[in-house]
């Protein structure tokens, strides 16, 4: 019989690879199936990590069952994990339209329940396998096998899985294919472990074979699981930025991004409004910048005969499909740029007569950057004298509800800081027309003078945009309020409020339950576990801060965001190695780790405040690496304090995961939207100072 230690080690690494790929794939799947706002992203990560924590904690129960053939159980559970990833993803995708009315968005609690149930089995099992692997190792002739080593192996797998997904699979594989690829090493490692224990080889092969069939059937039927209920699927592609479907219904072609229709061949009214409302203000626009766009806009733009049109779109897949299916027309003077619109505008030195922003609602950090004080300032500086800047928000014709009013008021007061005139035009979308001079509201007449033919504006403007409606809307946004800024994204919390209002619900019950659960958990944990909890919290919180700040300063650059996520995993590995070498001085390691984390976050924020846009991208990568290094550094020390037995390891892993899950949620939807970037950093530092105090008290002789 072979020694199982290497087989278990391989299994732990393979589990890390498979679970990170599964996590990233599931996040994208949920974003495609539900609202892609920051709240939902945080809920997914929170649920994943929290279930992982529960699974880790539950491993302690499994370990106690002495009679179990633990090695075989570990191998079978690992094999099942590979198949479960595919079943999980297919289940999330397919059951959505059975559980919820097809075509509808879903409110907070149903989304939370669907996420928690959908993710639960897989994340629970992943969480359970890590301490259980340690237990199997210790029962297989390595009673002193260090928990920290398992942690290192797991991190190695996580880093490899993250890199594999972000830099390989996302380009070459569909989600179910990615799961199949990432699951293969896991099935192999599980078989290898099983082989070390003897037993019935036929049974091993049959179970592995069944899982492989499930994995590869999933990959083969990917497209069928996405075919819409009505209409014909013309094209399906997973771009780096989301899932894109081109659907044909009769003569109409619609592009859906993450499940939402974002462009269509028959949206004449929106195309006319987005283009002609701003351009009607100009005698002859020479240079126009269009940041994102949808069906028919370039066609409408061509009616003004500009000499140059820069069309900037982040996602090249989106652009290619819009041109392929005739949603956008190739017009004279057109330059298509696949860049982040804000980064493009920052680097572009020329002036535009018109800058038209056609982006979705600002319910993510990424989109919020286009509706901030800093962006409006940039836009105003890039406008030629007499130029016009415009953008739009979801509208409401007959009444402006409170969250919508706050949103528009915030935007108005943000824009008015940089433009002498900001005029809102009501309708199903509300358009902001921003200039340094008066806005001509007789838009049909202005267009008629210039010989610009329209369908919607000509026929409906007078009835829909009456002087009374325009006046009512503009009066409602005048109450003074603070602007939306890059590092104080007030708009996002209003977007959250609006989302809750749409579903007539409140997150209060969730917060109360979460707070109560957290309080009970914190009261039951040891001091060392609290340090790990707060470190997990701070690491994930810092990762979100870094991604947020990086996007603000550099724009959404997929490759570098992927690098940031990877370095936040990569530091854990050498950190844990270093920490394990210093485990004999555990309390010192914990205390110094806490001090280092406080200094790191404080230094990061101070550097950001002092140097802002002058900071190089490498600064963010180094910060991410160092933060995760310290996090990894503390783990072996905490284990050493806890005693290092199986149960202690279980609780330590659990505390780390619980902290990470809570940190993700609270930083994303609480600290940043409500306290801003600096407030969020202060909150993280405060938590770590509490942790430092706890370490200090324990070193004074109090209970560890």
């Amino acid at each position: 019989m072979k020694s199982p230690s290497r087989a278990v080690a391989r299994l732990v690494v393979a589990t890390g690879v498979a679970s990170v790929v599964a996590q990233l794939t599931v996040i994208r799947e949920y974003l495609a199936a539900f609202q892609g706002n920051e709240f939902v992203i945080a809920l997914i990560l929170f649920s994943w990590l929290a279930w992982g924590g529960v699974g880790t904690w539950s491993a302690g129960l499994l370990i106690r069952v002495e009679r179990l053939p633990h090695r075989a159980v570990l191998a079978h559970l690992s094999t099942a994990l590979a198949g479960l990833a595919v079943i999980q993803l297919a289940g999330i995708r397919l059951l959505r339209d059975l559980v919820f009315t097809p075509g509808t968005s879903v409110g907070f609690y149903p989304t939370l329940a669907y996420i928690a149930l959908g993710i639960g089995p897989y994340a629970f099992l992943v969480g359970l396998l890590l301490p259980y692997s340690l237990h199997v190792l210790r029962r297989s002739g390595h009673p002193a096998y260090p928990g920290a080593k398992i942690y290192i192996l797991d991190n190695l797998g996580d880093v490899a899985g993250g890199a594999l997904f972000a830099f390989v699979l996302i380009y070459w594989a569909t989600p179910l294919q990615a799961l199949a690829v990432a699951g293969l090493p896991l099935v192999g490692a599980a078989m290898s472990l099983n082989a070390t224990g003897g037993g019935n080889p036929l049974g091993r092969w049959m179970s592995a074979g069944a899982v492989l069939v499930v994995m590869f059937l999933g990959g083969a039927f990917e497209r069928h699981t996405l075919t819409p209920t009505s209409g014909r699927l013309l094209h399906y592609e997973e771009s780096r930025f989301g899932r894109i479907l081109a659907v044909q219904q009769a003569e109409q072609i619609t592009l859906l991004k993450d499940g939402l229709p974002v462009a269509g061949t028959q949206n004449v009214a929106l195309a006319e409004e987005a283009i002609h409302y701003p351009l009607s203000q100009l005698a002859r626009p020479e240079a126009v910048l269009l940041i994102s766009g949808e069906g028919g806009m370039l066609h409408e733009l061509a009616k003004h005969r500009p000499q140059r049109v820069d069309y900037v779109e982040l996602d090249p897949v989106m652009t290619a499909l819009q041109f392929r299916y005739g949603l956008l027309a190739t017009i004279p003077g057109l330059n298509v740029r696949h860049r982040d619109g804000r980064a493009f505008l920052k680097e572009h030195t020329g002036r535009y007569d018109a800058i038209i922003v056609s982006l979705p609602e600002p319910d993510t950090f990424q989109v919020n950057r286009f509706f901030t004080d800093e962006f409006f300032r940039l836009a105003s500086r890039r406008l030629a004298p007499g130029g016009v800047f415009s953008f739009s928000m979801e509208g409401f014709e007959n009444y402006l509800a409170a969250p919508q009013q706050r949103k528009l008021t915030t935007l108005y007061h943000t824009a008015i800081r940089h433009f002498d005139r900001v005029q809102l035009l009501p309708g199903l979308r509300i358009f902001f027309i921003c200039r340094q001079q008066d806005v001509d509201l007789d838009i049909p007449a202005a267009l008629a003078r210039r010989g610009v033919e329209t369908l919607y504006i000509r026929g409906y403007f007078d009835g829909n945009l009456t002087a009374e409606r325009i006046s009512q809307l503009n009066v409602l946004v005048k109450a003074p309020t603070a602007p939306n800024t890059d590092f104080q994204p007030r708009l996002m919390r209003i977007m959250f409020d609006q989302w809750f209002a749409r579903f007539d619900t409140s997150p209060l019950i969730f917060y109360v339950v979460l707070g109560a659960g957290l309080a009970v958990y914190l009261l039951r944990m040891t001091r060392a576990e609290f340090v790990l909890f707060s470190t997990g919290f701070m690491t994930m919180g810092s990762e979100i801060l870094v991604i947020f700040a990086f996007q603000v300063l550099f724009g959404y650059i997929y490759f570098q965001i992927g690098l940031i996520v990877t370095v936040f995993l990569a530091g854990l590995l050498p950190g844990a190695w270093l920490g394990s070498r210093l485990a004999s001085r555990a309390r010192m390691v914990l205390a110094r780790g806490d001090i280092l984390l406080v200094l790191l976050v404080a230094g990061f924020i101070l550097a950001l405040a002092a140097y802002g846009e002058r900071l190089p991208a490498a600064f963010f990568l180094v910060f991410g690496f160092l933060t995760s290094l310290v996090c990894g550094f503390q783990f072996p020390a905490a284990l050493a304090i806890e005693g290092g037995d199986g149960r202690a390891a279980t609780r330590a892993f659990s505390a780390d995961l619980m902290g990470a899950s809570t940190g993700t949620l609270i930083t994303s939807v609480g600290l940043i939207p409500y306290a801003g970037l600096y407030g969020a950093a202060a909150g993280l530092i405060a938590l770590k100072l509490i942790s430092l105090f706890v370490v200090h008290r324990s070193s004074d002789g109090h209970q560890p």
Partner: protein
Amino acid sequence: MAINRRRFMYCSSLALCGSACFGLPLGFAAEPPAGSGPANIRGKVFRGEAPARLWKWSREGQFYRRLEGGLVQCLVCPNRCTLQPGDRSICRTKVNMAGKLYTLAYGNPCAVHNDPVEKKPLYHFRPQSKVFSLATAGCNFRCLNCQNWEISQARPEDLRFVELFPADAVDKAAEIGSAAIAYTYSEAITYFEYMFDTARLAREQGIYNLLISNGYINAEPLEALCEVLDGANINLKAFSNGIYRRLNGGTLQPVLETLKTLHRRGVHFEITTLVVPGYVDDDAMTRAMCAWILDNIGPDHPLHFTRFVPRYKLNRLPPTPVSTLERCRAIAMEAGLRYVYVGNVPLHAANHTYCHQCGRKIVERLGYHIPVFHIKSGRCEFCQAAIPGRWHV
């Protein structure tokens, strides 16, 4: 046979559910239903959510009955909410206060505008006239695609409003020269008392009254309303009880009864059907609907097939293809309906009115503008056929 998502879903659901990931019950029918998700989204009475005391904009309900134990039953709409003291109705505007039913939506409209009558849409009622349009909070439905959800799914006391009691509303309409008052936007039936009192005063002053509604109203209040009503647009959301329950939280039959009552009482009305892709675009359903209209209320009530655009909760569907609307129109015309329009499609040829007898274009509509009008004294100028509607321009 091509395998599509739904077929795949049903083929694979057994295996998926077997994983016990979701613990959902098995047993789906071989032929899937038109849609899944909740089978009925009907609203619920809000227990104990009445305000502590009545406010200035309250009136005792006009149609209700008292039951034993201080309970009351609202009789305005087919929801027939039975309320204990302190409860609030499904529509959010009616409350039981000490054994009496009160409305909280009286003289407090949250939306007040002066709209073109074509916007309602009413194409056969005094074309190009302006209509003083108002709404309070509340609705007896829960439409997933509501365009006015911020007022229809809200309580009167939670919204901004202007004070405009019936006499003031009529004065305001007269002051700005509106030909009619439209009770619209949210759901007029939920502020029945306010609508009825305003309409009565408006009629005394020669101002028309227009009901823009889902038609979910009981016979007795509707009969009373018909006394003061001049025109209506009734939203016939689908010709399927299942879809009414699934998308709107209502039922079909009461709406059909409303159409029959309005027809019998001689109120001019038009019908609007929003063609929601995947739900209300079925040819057989459209045929059945048109056959019912023809058999029960005749061919002369204009029918508008309007284009769905993603809104509110039903925002993950593409808009309706224009050709689907054209197909619906063709089915209706083939069935024998005379005036069938396509809505929410700018400057479509089916926005115009064509004489049912000679086929000539008698009203050309460019949005809300009417550059061509060939109706005189309610008759086609070309062939003298009587054109149904109220045509005084």
